[in-house]
């Protein structure tokens, strides 16, 4: 498999007259897990939205294998680049199997019939996310963690080589957050899928991502392996927050402990 390349070149984008991203340049490393981190309103969601064509750039380009995604046929793009948006809607009463099957949409033309390959892709997605036993259940009856696994299964059934996720762990308890990130790591290791996600939790981002992109004010503040990017200076610059960085005993990656104004032991700092 030739890994697909995804890059952003001189990208300027925003909403109406408000420019949020200003001349951004990025390369997403193929076959790796990349996490975008940053404060609220730093432009990370805008970047993800522009990279998945939900938003048209005012200037510049998003390039998939060197071709502008905004000039590609929509269905073709959707066979290579998948997205799990922040708040997808599950129609009332839809079953897990039916929802996951929707991931096959870009593989079907106007009159194409459902094939064995479609059944296999859906089954594989259900198995990979351990949702096969839920197949006949209604999505709106599931717990938050199960539901998120089902949505990821839908994105997997799409069988794209690149998967972009907008805050996939928001609203999940810590065990389910770890579950989702482990699942994405399995996917990355087993299939070589390139994963790019916006994450809120710096420590989980540092542990699970091969590369971190720290954004501030619509620009890339720092980019590279977590060991280089996650520093006290970066946290100060990007979040305006004082912090300690220690070593994560599980992964050996950096781990950030915030320092607020209260609850300090005598002699701390």
């Amino acid at each position, binding site marked *: 498999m030739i890994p697909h390349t995804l890059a952003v070149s001189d990208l300027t984008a925003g909403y109406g007259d408000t420019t949020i991203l200003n001349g951004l340049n990025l390369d997403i490393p193929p076959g790796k897990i990349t996490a975008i981190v940053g404060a609220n309103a730093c432009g990370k969601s805008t970047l993800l939205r522009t990279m*998945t064509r939900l938003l048209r750039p005012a200037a510049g380009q998003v390039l998939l294998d060197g071709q502008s995604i905004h000039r590609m046929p929509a269905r073709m793009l959707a066979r290579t680049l998948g997205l799990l948006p922040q708040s997808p809607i599950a129609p009332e009463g839809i*079953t897990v199997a039916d929802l996951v099957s929707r991931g096959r949409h870009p593989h079907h033309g*106007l009159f194409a019939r459902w094939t064995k390959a479609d059944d296999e892709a859906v089954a594989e997605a259900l198995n990979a996310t351990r949702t096969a036993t839920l197949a006949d259940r209604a999505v709106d009856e599931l717990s938050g963690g199960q539901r998120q696994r089902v949505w990821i299964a839908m994105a997997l059934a799409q069988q794209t080589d690149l998967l972009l996720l907008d805050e996939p762990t928001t609203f999940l308890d810590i065990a389910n957050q770890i579950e989702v990130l482990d699942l994405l790591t399995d996917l990355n290791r087993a299939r070589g899928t390139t994963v790019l996600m916006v994450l809120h939790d710096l420590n989980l981002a540092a542990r699970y991502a091969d590369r971190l992109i720290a954004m501030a004010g619509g620009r890339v503040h720092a980019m590279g392996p977590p060991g280089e990017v996650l520093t006290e200076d970066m946290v100060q610059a990007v979040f305006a927050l004082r912090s300690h960085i220690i070593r994560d005993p599980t992964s050996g990656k950096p781990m950030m402990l915030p320092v607020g104004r209260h609850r300090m032991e005598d002699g701390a700092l």
Partner: protein
Amino acid sequence: MTTAHLMQRDRQLRGRHRRRLIGLLAAIVVTLIAVTLMLGQSFTPPADVLRVLTGGDVPGAAFTVGQLRLPRAVLGLLAGISFGLGGAAFQVMLRNPLASPDIIGISSGASAAAVFAIVVLGWDGPVVPVFAIAAGLGIAMLVYGLSFKGGVAGARLILVGIGVSAMLESVIAYVLARAPSGTLQDAMRWLTGSVNGARLQDALPLLVAVIVFGTLLLSRARDLEALRLGDDTASALGVRVGRTRIVVIVAAVGLISVATAVAGPIAFVAFLSGPIASRIMGRDGSVLLPAALIGAVLVLAGDYVGQFLLPARYPVGVVTGALGAPYLIYLIVRANRNGGAS
């Protein structure tokens, strides 16, 4: 058995179930047409009906079947399909059962345009449906524009639509009241819808609309299904959201407007067909085709009930209106309970 095999078997079972239900609905439609053709004030044997349909001359039956019942059945069938299809398309696209064209003013817009063209301008023929389509699209844009506030929220669009609809109803009432030869029949047609006095030539523009716009809508059925997952998800699945929405709006407004120009805004058929269809079909799969059939069932059965099974003769819209109103109340009560997100 592997998961893939289970998926395959499950899908085949559901496909068969779906085809059976659609077949059953089609059979009900055919039965209703047959009943309409055979059974009115008098009974016409099937053999005579067939002879009239194939152009044979049967004294008496040639008039009752050929001139009275056949146009009625054809118009009821086509209008039902149009309202069912157009209504369900709107409800699916806007993800809200209240967002039906007869609730948000599109039907009353087309109706007001038709009654204005016929009564005030004295028009007749295919120019009336064309004018109704223009008005329907205009009202759709107006409602959309008035409810736009950095994005369109479903609840706001519905409230604006109900307001616009009420305004247009009063336009219809005003024009009818000033009409030189305003009759109760006319008023009933333009306010609640009716297939009384149907002529076969009126059905022709509707047939064209059903073929053109109906095909267009059904070809988008799968994209519409993807839109139910939200605009972002649909777009990620390769759906051109903006383009799909325009095609669906034009086609659905076209169907609703032409049907309204011919039969009046038959009350609540657009509103009821989609929800009934999805209740029958279950939530999986597109609801468009079953909704078209349910629409036909509602109009044909409603017209028959209104003509022959009630103490007085009522136009079809009175019967479907009596069915639809309680459901509307139920939906509004439910929407109120969960804060407008129906």
